[in-house]
């Protein structure tokens, strides 16, 4: 049995009358890549924001190494957060800073490294995501895909032990997507970090995941290794994997 670094128990969240998560249970294995798939608007980003304490659950627990982060005071929570890196779906780069300053930000805030060391480390991760040459530009001056890669660089620079990626490859060309996939796999292997990835790319999901979990209607309806997931006979999952508009998941509500 491998151990689970994150355990989510009966997590519920609603916005107004809309129930987004309904008593959701999910385990994230340590040192592996877990990919969460599910429909657009299904609550994947909301789930990710709960894991890092940006949103507070209405009920339920989120245990990170046994610590329930929903109940921790801000100071303790920040200690836990320093273990995380996160790539936001829209990048969330600071638009008043250059790409370089954005990427160096976590090191500047939380380490005592010298300017030179920070500069070197920044160069290194920027090279990893293929952004050399854009260091001095501002987020508004680069493309969406470049912003995503800069966000990725910022998420990994402080060598966190858990990294959350909200759609790391959406909006990238196929070659860059494959490169980012490899990068994630590579970082994961080298540093033995835990990765949680939200993805719409079924092919890449099956290629990189150790574990896949499908979110539907506020719950995890299927989970397992890619091999297990291929065989599970859940009509929702099958329709999603095959990408068919015919099946139990209705794109337009008929009722």
């Amino acid at each position: 049995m491998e151990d689970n670094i994150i355990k989510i128990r009966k997590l519920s969240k609603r916005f107004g009358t809309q129930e987004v998560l309904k008593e959701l249970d999910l385990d994230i294995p340590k040192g592996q890549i877990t990919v969460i798939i599910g429909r657009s608007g299904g609550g994947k980003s909301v789930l990710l924001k709960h894991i890092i304490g940006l949103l507070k659950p209405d009920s339920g627990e989120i245990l990170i190494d046994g610590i329930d982060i929903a109940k921790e005071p801000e100071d303790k929570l920040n200690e836990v957060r320093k273990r995380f890196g996160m790539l936001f779906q829209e990048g969330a780069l600071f638009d008043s800073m250059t790409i370089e300053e954005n990427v160096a930000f976590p090191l500047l805030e939380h380490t005592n490294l010298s300017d030179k060391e920070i500069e070197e480390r920044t160069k290194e991760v920027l090279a990893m995501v293929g952004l050399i040459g854009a260091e001095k530009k501002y987020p508004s001056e680069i493309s969406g895909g470049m912003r995503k890669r800069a966000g990725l660089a910022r998420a990994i620079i402080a060598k966190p032990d858990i990294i959350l990626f909200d759609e790391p490859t959406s909006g990238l060309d196929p070659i860059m997507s494959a490169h980012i996939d490899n990068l994630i796999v590579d970082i994961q292997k080298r540093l033995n970090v835990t990765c949680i990835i939200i993805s719409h790319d079924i092919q890449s999901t099956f290629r990189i995941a150790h574990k896949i979990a499908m979110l539907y209607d506020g719950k995890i309806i299927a989970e397992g290794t890619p091999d297990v997931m291929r065989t599970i006979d859940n009509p929702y999952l099958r329709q999603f994997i095959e990408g068919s508009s015919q099946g139990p998941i209705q794109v337009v509500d008929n009722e």
Partner: protein
Amino acid sequence: MNRIIEWLGKTFIDFLSEAGRMLLLLIEVVKQTIKPPLKLERIFIQMEFIGVKSLFVVILVSLFTGMVLALQTYTGFRRFSAESMVGAIVALSLCRELGPVLTSIMVTARAGSAMAAEIGTMRVTEQIDALTVMAVNPVKYLIVPRILASVLVIPVLTIISDYTGIVGGYIVGVKLLNINEGVYINRTIDLLEMSDIFNGLFKSVVFALLLSLIGCYKGYYTKGGARGVGKATTEAVVLSCVVIFIADYILTSFLF
């Protein structure tokens, strides 16, 4: 009739809950200010933005206010041959009242609105979430420097405003309306007391706190895209102006 009562009740409750949240934010600001480390660099950047870049508009507005004040008091005072008092009245009104109020209104228009817009944009584009995720307290990082900078720099702007206004009054009174220079200046020095200036400066500190708190508050709680940012900015300016005038009355009745 019921509708009206309902509306009044709702408005009142909204007002109270907003005031409550603002107070909570202020408490958090105080907590985060005391908690080390305090990065001076961020405060200096804000001081430059709020202070140095507001300087021109404050000087311009104060100069003309002093000038028109001299013109108006002259017209009135001439009717009972009290022209010699013009200088003193101009100086008193400026130091006690117009210097702090005009400066704060100008800074609200320039910097208060910018605070709401900048922080609001950061909110709706998840930049504030990004700060939180990176274990950087957004109140400490974004709001504390803006409020401290305002409180430090607006009194200085007020002194400059008082001075320029008095110069404006002098130009009109002595050079244009030919009031005797010696009388004009002596009367001003006789009547203006140090306490007038200090009370005005105290007012400016309170206004600075209010306008920066409101600007940051409106930005911090922005919801919903570009429209939300626009709304937050407008509300910050309107609310700051109203609150400044109300606080001005309250302070005047207590201080003087």
